[in-house]
């Protein structure tokens, strides 16, 4: 008897284990059979400033809609009025991603979300989702300063702008960059949702669900207030939004003592500046070729051309090079640097600044002519006017030996949007902005996803290996090298250098070509790898050297995203390579140079870099000493806790839990209701039967046994 029960229990256990093994190993869950998850998602997120919210929002449990591909006008009518299965999830062909269509979608209640196909086929001649007047409220022109020039009354800088990036959408908008993924969606649409002979398709239909629920609402003031309340009173504090922040990169021809803040004695400084960032409609997508890369590459090549001469034959004035981050969002980086200068919290202050030369968009030179923009209001002052005229004549004399022509636009024209405007807000210093446009921008894709290498005419002949492409000198590279030579010579003259040294100052087109390749096509190239620290080159998927071109969106900085933004690091290490000296310090000495008496941590930074790869793939890292520094680029509004500030940038980015997309088949509403109804009916029926049986229990079950009924 005992042996039988043991045998049975052992068999039961074996059966159970084998059943578990079978289900767990196969793991074909029901969820995987229903949903096809889309891996690469490029969302549009919510950004907030002092008064508004922009971007896109989905519901907390995602927005679901029946797929429909928007290819023709009749599709648009189907989605907005005549289709029988609203709400629709629109797959938008490139040609339809414009203001009129998106506004109609915004005002319709039949649209659950939009997935935009990003491709060059069907792309219009121009597309700029930015506003027509970038940064109009935080520049220098206002009611009190050049009021007739404020709000682009003088010149509309971005006339092709449709302002889509600054609209607030209540449905999610995703971008489809991967061709294979778009194919999956199209196939699902063609299999299930296609209209047959003009009649509506039948259930089950292919549907897509987009999740991009943003936590922050209304504006930065509200969001920061709620974050503060959460931090003070909640058990589980949740941050709702983060200020946009990162770092500016600066260097100088004569090292400046970083620990001595405030006015630097006997220093008269010429500032050469450009911007480091860009943006587009979608999150973290910003190729920014003409808008930003042209400026960065030109200034880096300028530094490379100028640095050796300034060490051999130093000009009287110091030249201060600065790369400002966050300029797309109301001048975050430049306003912070000016604020620090005014507060005596920076290595120099406004009294040290002699003049300023900014490099704007210089990539699309038509007819090889550059334009020098100046500020008409400050030039009403005689001394400023003479300084600016002298600056212009120096630039023109520097251009004499080159194939470029430099001209200045009409005197009454205001400055284009530039970091120089923030310096003018603090003090009327003489300065110029170099650009390739006379009046409005020549960039037809300003701050959009299409401002890429092709927009800058950086294309390589087919059949080149990556290393060959790295050093191939395109026409764009040669043109930017010319501009860099011009800027370098002008800066040398502006700093008071001798004219006979000018011929030694030439930008190397090879370096320009390498920079263009690294910033526009592929950041994981052999040159960048040799400049960066060893741990960066070895890291896995999330390192800053992932494949493809770098994206120039400012992001949330070190507090949220780890070490500094990839572009900031690249520029920092490139500058270290171009201006630094190799030392023979060991790695630990490189991390702590203050212990050595020959090294000065106040004047220099020390970088441990990989070095070039030798033939058999090994690298010998070494220590570079350079006077390159990072300075914090977060808007002063967040330091002053004035979240509703009108003077400083107040841009924040909302937080979110998950952003994903998936497609699946949906059944009709009637079928769903029927299934639910049947289920509820079965439940009620079972309750009734149970009640009935339990109330008649003695009758039903008493005849089975002869046991005496126990009275209760």
């Amino acid at each position, binding site marked *: 008897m005992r042996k039988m029960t043991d045998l049975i229990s052992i068999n039961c256990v074996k059966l159970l284990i084998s059943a578990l093994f079978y289900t767990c190993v196969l793991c074909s869950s029901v969820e995987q059979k229903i949903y096809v998850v889309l891996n690469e998602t490029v969302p549009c997120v919510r950004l907030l400033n002092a008064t508004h919210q922009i971007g896109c929002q989905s519901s907390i449990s995602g927005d679901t809609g029946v797929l429909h591909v928007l290819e023709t006008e009749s599709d648009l009518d189907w989605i907005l009025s005549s289709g029988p299965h609203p709400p629709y999830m629109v797959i938008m062909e490139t040609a339809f991603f414009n203001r009129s269509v998106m506004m109609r979608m915004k005002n319709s209640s039949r649209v659950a979300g939009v997935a935009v196909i990003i491709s060059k086929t069907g792309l219009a001649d121009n597309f700029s989702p930015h506003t027509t007047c970038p940064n109009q409220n935080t520049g220098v022109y206002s009611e009190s300063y050049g009021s007739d020039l404020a709000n682009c009354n003088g010149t509309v800088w971005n006339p092709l702008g449709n302002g889509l990036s600054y609209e607030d959408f209540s449905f999610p908008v995703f971008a489809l960059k991967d061709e294979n993924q778009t194919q999956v969606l199209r196939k699902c649409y063609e299999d299930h949702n296609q209209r047959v002979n003009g009649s509506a398709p039948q259930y089950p239909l292919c549907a897509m669900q987009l999740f991009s629920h943003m936590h922050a609402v209304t504006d930065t003031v509200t969001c920061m207030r709620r974050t503060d309340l959460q931090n003070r009173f909640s058990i589980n504090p949740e941050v709702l939004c983060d200020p946009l922040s990162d770092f500016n990169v600066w260097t100088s021809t004569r090292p400046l003592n970083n620990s001595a803040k405030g006015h630097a004695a006997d220093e008269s400084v010429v500032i050469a500046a450009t911007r480091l960032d860009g943006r587009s409609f979608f999150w973290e997508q910003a190729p920014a070729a003409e808008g930003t890369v042209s400026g960065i590459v030109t200034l880096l090549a300028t530094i490379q051309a100028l640095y050796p001469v300034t060490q051999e034959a130093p000009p009287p004035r110091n030249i201060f090079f600065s790369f400002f981050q966050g300029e797309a969002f109301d001048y975050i980086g430049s306003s912070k640097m000016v604020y620090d200068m005014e507060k005596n919290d920076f290595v120099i202050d406004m009294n040290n600044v002699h003049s300023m030369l900014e490099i704007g968009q210089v990539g699309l030179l038509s007819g090889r002519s550059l334009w020098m923009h100046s500020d008409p209001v400050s030039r009403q002052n005689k001394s400023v006017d003479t300084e600016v005229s002298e600056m212009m004549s120096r630039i023109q004399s520097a251009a004499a030996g080159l194939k470029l022509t430099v001209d200045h636009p009409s005197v009454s024209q205001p400055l284009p949007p530039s970091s120089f405007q923030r310096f003018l807000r603090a003090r009327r210093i003489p300065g110029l902005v170099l650009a390739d446009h006379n009046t409005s921008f020549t960039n037809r894709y300003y701050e959009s996803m299409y401002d890429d290498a092709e927009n800058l005419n950086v294309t390589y002949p087919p059949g080149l290996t990556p290393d060959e492409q790295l050093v191939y000198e395109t026409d764009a590279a040669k043109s930017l090298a010319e501009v860099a030579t011009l800027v370098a010579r002008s800066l040398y003259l502006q700093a008071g250098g001798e004219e006979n040294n000018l011929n030694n100052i030439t930008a190397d087109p090879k370096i320009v070509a390498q920079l263009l390749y690294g910033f526009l096509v592929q950041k994981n190239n052999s040159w960048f790898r040799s400049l960066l620290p060893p741990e960066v080159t070895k890291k896995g998927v999330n390192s800053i050297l992932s494949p493809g071109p770098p994206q120039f969106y400012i992001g949330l900085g070190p507090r949220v995203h780890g070490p500094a933004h990839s572009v900031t690091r690249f520029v920092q290490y490139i500058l270290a390579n171009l201006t630094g000296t190799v030392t023979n310090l060991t790695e630990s000495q490189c991390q702590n140079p203050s212990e050595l008496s020959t090294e000065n941590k106040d004047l220099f930074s020390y970088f441990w870099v990989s070095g070039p790869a030798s033939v058999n793939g090994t690298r010998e890292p070494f220590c570079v000493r350079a006077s390159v520094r990072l300075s914090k680029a977060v808007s002063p509004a967040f330091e002053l806790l004035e979240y509703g500030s009108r003077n400083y940038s107040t841009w924040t980015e909302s937080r979110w839990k998950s952003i994903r997309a998936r497609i699946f088949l949906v059944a009709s509403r009637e079928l769903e209701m029927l299934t639910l109804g049947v289920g509820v009916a079965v439940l009620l029926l079972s309750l009734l039967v149970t009640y009935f049986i339990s*109330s008649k229990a003695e009758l039903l079950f008493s005849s089975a046994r002869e046991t005496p009924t126990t009275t209760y």
Partner: protein
Amino acid sequence: MDLSSVFFIGNIMNLERIPNEEKLSLCRRYYLGGFAFLPFLWLVNVLWFFREAFLKPTYTEQLQIKSYVKKSALGLIVWVAVLTTWITIFQHFRAQWGEVGDYLSFTIPLGTA
């Protein structure tokens, strides 16, 4: 053991076997306790003693129990009215009140005003 005696709230106390004076003192205690901003005690009072007060044959203490039950019901109705009004106003206007609304809230929903 029939299903009707399954119907109880809170502690299982069968009022059948308690003497009437104790029933009265229990009812009084619940009535007085409800004044400490505890309207649920009044709710319990009403539901528990309703049968005692109105459906049972008369006994001496029933008059007082009846008055307590009536007064508890009145207090309950007032509380319900006040709370419903306040909750409706708050839910409707919290977003518009901006800062004041946030300071009055314990948890603020994410992503909506």
